[in-house]
């Protein structure tokens, strides 16, 4: 497809983060303690199951981070050389392209999950000119049904059945590949490998992965098949498919959860180590800075900073070429602001740990040998702090995802144009007061957020148990 790629700041950072993780994993392979710690994560069933779920979310999020701008069809009278018109101002992502039907099949307004008619009665003009109050049929949801009253239930059940069958097939193929991989790496026959995996014997907790994948497929299979004909989670006020909105929210949550810690990590690490190792007035100054930041109630500091950032963005419209770029700048700024309030905890932790480390014999020996401070810090202190940094990175994730929802509710979160769990919940506030209640977009947002946060919490626990020397 002929498109112009767009690199938003958060995309670049997100893929940069992936590259960093890849690099760290490659380096960790060579260090025995790191390998042992990661093996402990891999052996924990909860850790592997939650990691599987997180990776699935990550795939959706990364797909949604490949942005591009399509070319518009050329104007009829324009002189074109390569058969394409001007580039569109609308920024789309790979996920948009994959879920094209979900994005484009927009109804008039609310419709319930799997419905074939709108949620509220409207006046319809009939063929013979008379008017009638009725639930109008949806433009797309269940449009293939000839007699919806009779066929609807059967059609839905049939699709669920088909979805389950497809899910079972896909799962079998995937499980086969996985077990074959295990069999080849251990040089045992397929049957033996299957029994070993299924009994959870030795090696990584593949059984947990398979069970988790099975559960996810059982859910995703029917949803995927149903989504071809219906709006599985209904539609929102302007008729957008809620399932599509929830999928789009995942990227926002991932960006907030990971980039926030990432962008402020250098500050926390450098200042924490400096305060702990150098002591004296440097320590006093750094402690003063983080006490000041800490003493301002988090939400208020974020609110103040976001309000100010909003003014900056509003008064400089010329900085941003498209609406997506502006929303992205705001998302990144929100990450920075959230990070501003959250780096202090890690900084204090690292300072305390450095204070302990600098008194240890090997650091003192290095100092006695005349090794430079910079070298001591990078060779002897920093590597021994990395487990704390890693634990902080995974522990903060779930809190940040939850915080985003609250901040967007308060009106100081992401750009109103950015789809996120927070904006979905915020939009759903009024819907609950309706009679009968519109509950689906709220439920969908909460459900996806719950699964994401739960997986993140469980994974963080597994990582902490494996890396924290005091935990065992």
């Amino acid at each position, binding site marked *: 497809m002929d498109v112009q790629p767009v690199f938003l700041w958060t995309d670049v950072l997100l893929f940069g983060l992936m590259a960093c993780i890849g690099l760290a994993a490659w380096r960790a392979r060579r260090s025995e303690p790191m390998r042992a710690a990661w093996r402990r994560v891999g052996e924990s069933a909860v850790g592997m199951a939650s990691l599987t779920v997180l990776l699935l979310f990550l795939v959706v999020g990364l797909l949604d981070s490949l942005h591009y701008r399509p070319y518009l069809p050329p104007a009829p009278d324009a002189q074109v050389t390569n058969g394409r018109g001007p580039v569109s101002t609308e920024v789309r992502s790979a996920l948009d392209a994959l879920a094209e039907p979900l994005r484009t099949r927009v109804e008039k307004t609310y419709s319930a999950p799997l419905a074939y008619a709108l949620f509220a009665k409207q006046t319809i003009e009939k063929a013979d000119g008379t008017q009638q109050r009725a639930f109008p049929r949806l433009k797309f949801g269940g449009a293939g049904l000839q007699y919806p009253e009779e066929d609807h239930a059967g059609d839905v059940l049939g699709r669920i059945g088909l979805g389950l069958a497809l899910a079972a097939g896909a799962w079998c193929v995937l499980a086969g590949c996985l077990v074959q991989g295990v069999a080849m790496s251990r040089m045992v026959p397929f049957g033996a490998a299957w029994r070993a995996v299924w009994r959870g014997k030795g090696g990584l907790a593949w059984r947990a992965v398979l069970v988790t994948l099975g559960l996810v497929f059982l859910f995703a299979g029917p949803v995927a098949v149903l989504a071809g004909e219906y709006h599985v989670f209904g539609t929102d006020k302007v008729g957008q498919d809620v399932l599509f909105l929830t999928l789009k929210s995942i990227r926002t949550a991932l960006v907030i959860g990971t980039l926030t810690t990432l962008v402020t990590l250098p500050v926390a690490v450098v200042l924490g180590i400096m305060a702990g190792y150098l002591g004296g007035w440097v320590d006093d100054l750094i402690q*003063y*800075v983080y*006490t*000041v*930041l*800490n*003493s*301002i*109630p988090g*939400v*208020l*500091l974020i*609110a*103040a*900073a976001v*309000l*100010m950032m909003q*003014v*900056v963005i*509003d*008064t400089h419209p010329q900085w941003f070429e498209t609406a997506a770029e502006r929303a992205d700048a705001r998302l990144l700024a929100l990450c920075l602001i959230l990070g501003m309030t959250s780096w202090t905890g890690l900084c204090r932790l690292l300072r305390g740990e450095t204070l302990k480390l600098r008194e240890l014999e090997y650091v003192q020996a290095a100092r006695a040998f005349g090794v430079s401070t910079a070298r001591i810090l990078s060779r002897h202190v920093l590597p021994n702090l990395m487990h704390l940094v890693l634990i902080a990175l995974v522990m903060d994730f*779930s809190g940040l995802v*939850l915080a985003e*929802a*609250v901040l967007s*509710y*308060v*009106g*100081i979160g992401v750009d109103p144009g950015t789809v996120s*769990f927070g904006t979905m*919940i915020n939009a759903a506030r009024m819907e*609950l007061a309706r009679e009968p*209640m519109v509950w689906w977009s*709220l439920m969908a947002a*909460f459900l996806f*957020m*719950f699964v994401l*946060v*739960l997986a993140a*919490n*469980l994974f963080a*626990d597994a990582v902490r148990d494996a890396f924290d020397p005091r935990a065992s």
Partner: protein
Amino acid sequence: MFAYIVRRLLYAPLILLGVNLLTFALFFVVNTPEDMARMQLGAKRVTPEAIERWKVERGYDKPLLFNGAASGAASLTDTIFFDKSLRMFAFDFGRADDGRDIATEIRTRMAFDFGRADDGRDIATEIRTRMGPSLAIAVPTFILGLFVTVSFALLLVFFRGSYLDFQGVVLCVAMMSISGLFYIIGGQWLVSKVWHLVPISGYGGGLDASRFLVLPVLIGVIAGIGGSARWYRTIFLEEAGKDYVRTARAKGLSELQALFRHVLKNGMIPILTGVVVVIPSLFMGSLISESFFGIPGLGSYTIDAINAQDFPVVRAMVFIGSLLYIVGLILTDLSYTLVDPRVRLD
């Protein structure tokens, strides 16, 4: 210890000054008063005169940090920084030179002159009237929440290692993975809309208020259980594995007695010192639940100010919040010495 407290108290203004400098930088340097005027006035009515009038009305028509036009001390005091940031301090000893009594000055300043909100109402009065409802919801939530979570954690520790303990921890993790907004929205829907037990939101004076308070307090307690109970459980577990608890059991104490007499007492040290820091901040109220339940406290006041982009109110709340936090820190240090005789402050 007295010297320590004095030193901490002297450190407090320094931190508050830092907070003020930071908020000042955020509100006046990142965006000039012109920017704010332009945004508040809206695109249509922006003329140089209108901006100037807006600034004069709100006292933003002065230089930021240094007033070259004024002479002597006024060159520093007749500025936005002094007027809008430093005036919030109670500890303004500078004026004593003109012969006025410092104590009177402090007493009048103790009234915390926060200036006026953009709609012209006095912020200090507003804060005083809104403190009551905030406390009425925050204090019961705090006390009840502490009681419930400590009991739940103790229960888990009593059944430690069993299936019940495992289930309890799973429940905790699941509960802390649910968004706080869900508890509020779900609670309002179930209790008020389906069961019609209490009003969905609002506030009344006197005893009538309790009707409106039951649900927010209940939801506040439930929403807090997950995270805290799991944390308290690890604290109690660590304590329960120590030698003195084994000795207590060996000398014939029952498990319950050992838990309540030894584990609870010693486990409360880190818990108490952890929660003391939030006690002063209870005044600030809970932002989210107050706005959901329509309780006219400081939390909803702050939210309204944020939504209306009423900067003076946000600034004042930042100042009070940090002041309360610093008080909380000092109280935390004191509580260490009170509950743990091993700790000496000096």
